[in-house]
């Protein structure tokens, strides 16, 4: 696995380098693009990256599929919204509470899920996503049903309010960087190795002392927490939520972003989220063909890019290095 640093600091340094480059790029982008609209796209990229990172830990590293991430995304968004509107809890706290409730649901659903084989796991997660969605639509007394909730308060921190898309970017950027650092730390640790071992060979993993069910549940919990966190950030960014955002299309979009960027890599979730968000925005004028575009993306990834953009990049680099090596040999 290229993401595991075997000699201490080896891959780590490389990843840190990539992260720093991306960070600088993001900062420059946000600073230069003083436009509201462009900052909004950056905000979306950050929020989606958080959710997709969670899905990557679950699917990419632990091998457990979920087609119901929109359910956790919705739980985070609605919980944070309702807590901040109805109980006056400061959004910065309600966001965390929303993510925590998503975590709780993630663990609840993970108990049966950790025993199911892949197909049925897909079904269970789809059913979960649908259950959350139909609840939001039906429970109008709580969620105001299909018409949605407006006037969601903005996030304030130490007396500063993140009002516009520009200022909000800094908040979600910090969140994304923290999430990616955490992901890297987890993957390079004993816990991360256990995740990968469960994916590669659950029987052998159990034979080596790994409590397979526990790690599957842990991965589910992390993915639900991050999806919930992303959902809550989303709600306080746009100020309005309605069930339309939380359909299975959203779940499929997260999966598409992950596969497009490349599973089981540190930067894949960010790259996938960025590319798909930008392309979706560019095609805004063909909004009627949006699902067609998603479908096209999924098929391209499945048939031509099985390891995503990051996989393609690695392959290209390996070929390039090989060529250079070959030339050197010839020269000597």
């Amino acid at each position, binding site marked *: 696995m290229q993401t595991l640093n075997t000699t201490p600091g080896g891959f780590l340094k490389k990843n840190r380098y990539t992260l720093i480059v991306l960070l600088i790029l993001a900062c420059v982008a946000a600073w230069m693009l003083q436009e509201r609209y462009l900052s909004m796209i950056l905000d979306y990229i950050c929020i989606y990256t958080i959710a997709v990172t969670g899905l990557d830990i679950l699917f990419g590293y632990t091998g457990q599929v979920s087609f119901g991430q929109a359910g956790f995304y919705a739980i985070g968004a609605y919980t944070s919204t309702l807590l901040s509107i109805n109980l006056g809890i400061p959004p910065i706290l309600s966001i965390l509470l929303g993510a925590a409730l998503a975590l709780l649901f993630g663990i609840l659903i993970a108990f*049966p899920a950790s025993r199911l084989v*892949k*197909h049925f796991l897909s079904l269970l997660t789809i*059913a979960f996503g649908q259950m959350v969605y139909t609840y939001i639509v039906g*429970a109008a007394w709580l969620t105001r049903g299909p018409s949605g909730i407006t006037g969601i308060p903005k996030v304030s921190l130490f007396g500063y309010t993140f009002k516009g898309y520009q200022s909000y970017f800094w908040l979600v950027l910090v969140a994304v960087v923290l999430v990616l650092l955490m992901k890297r730390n987890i993957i390079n640790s004993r816990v991360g190795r256990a995740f990968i071992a469960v994916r590669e060979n659950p029987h052998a993993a159990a034979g080596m002392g790994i409590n397979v069910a526990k790690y599957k549940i842990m991965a589910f919990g992390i993915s639900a927490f991050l999806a919930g966190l992303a959902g809550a950030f989303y709600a306080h960014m746009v100020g309005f939520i309605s069930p339309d955002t939380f359909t299975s299309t959203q779940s*499929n979009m997260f999966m598409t972003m992950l596969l497009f960027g490349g599973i089981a890599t540190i930067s894949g979730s960010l790259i996938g989220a960025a590319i798909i968000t930008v392309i979706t925005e560019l095609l805004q004028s063909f909004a009627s063909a*949006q699902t*067609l575009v998603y*479908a096209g993306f999924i098929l391209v990834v499945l048939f031509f890019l099985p390891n995503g953009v990051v996989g393609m990049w690695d392959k290209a680099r390996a070929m390039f290095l090989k060529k250079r090596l070959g030339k050197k040999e010839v020269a000597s």
Partner: protein
Amino acid sequence: MLLTLVIGALMLGSIYGLVGMGYGLIYKASGLMSLAQGDMLMIGAFLGLTFYKILGLPFIVSLLLVMVIMFALGMFIERVLVTSLLAKGAQTVYVILCTIAISMLLQNGAMFAWGSNVMQFPSIFGVSSVNILGYEILPERLLALGVGIVCMLALHFFMQKSKFGTSMRAAAQDEMAASTLGINVPRTKGAAWGIASMLAGSIGVVVGPIFGVYTAMGSLIGQKAFASAVVGGYGNMYGAIVGGIFFGFVETFVSAYVTSLYKDFISFAILIIVMIFMPTGLFKEQVME
């Protein structure tokens, strides 16, 4: 009132059950899962509408044409897309994702072809209601129920009595043994996908007059159908019918006597509870590691 509800529940149940049978058939024959079944139903409905209303063909001809086209479409998806995906060594999860993409393509494609409005399927019988024991019932509902029963029986006899059906069952049980007996296993798999899509498509034609025809009509039915398949015991074709009728009754009676707001939520909640406490469904099939 009660009889109307029961007929409504049976009709809804047989729709779910038949589409669910398609899931079971695909799973039995190829060990895979397709999530495009609901959209096959939608495409069937649109095609039926086109043949019957726009081209003015007789209803039965329209239905047969739809069946042929849908069979070919299902077979195409398996033989061309799924097979080449598996040949690349893709995990089965990617096949599910592929069928999700197909479902998106079909929905968006239908929108381009037929527009995004609900289209009215003209009445087939020319009468607005028939009288049964003093209850007024829409004849199309009876037709849906009838077609449902006919399809079930036809599929049953096809699988049990015909040579091809027998080879399909053999291939599903032991692929290796079947192919050494000279059964063309890839063809039986393709046929299973074809039959599943044909079932969904013909159901689409008969429910068109009841629900109206629109691009999203298949998604909820498709999901209820897989709920039926799971509750019945995934891969067990007859279980899907039982599961479908169960959900038909739950939905109809919850809407009638409790609240229609939560009918979908309750169905999915039941599905999740079943998956947690009885993951093999009513008629046991292997789902655990």
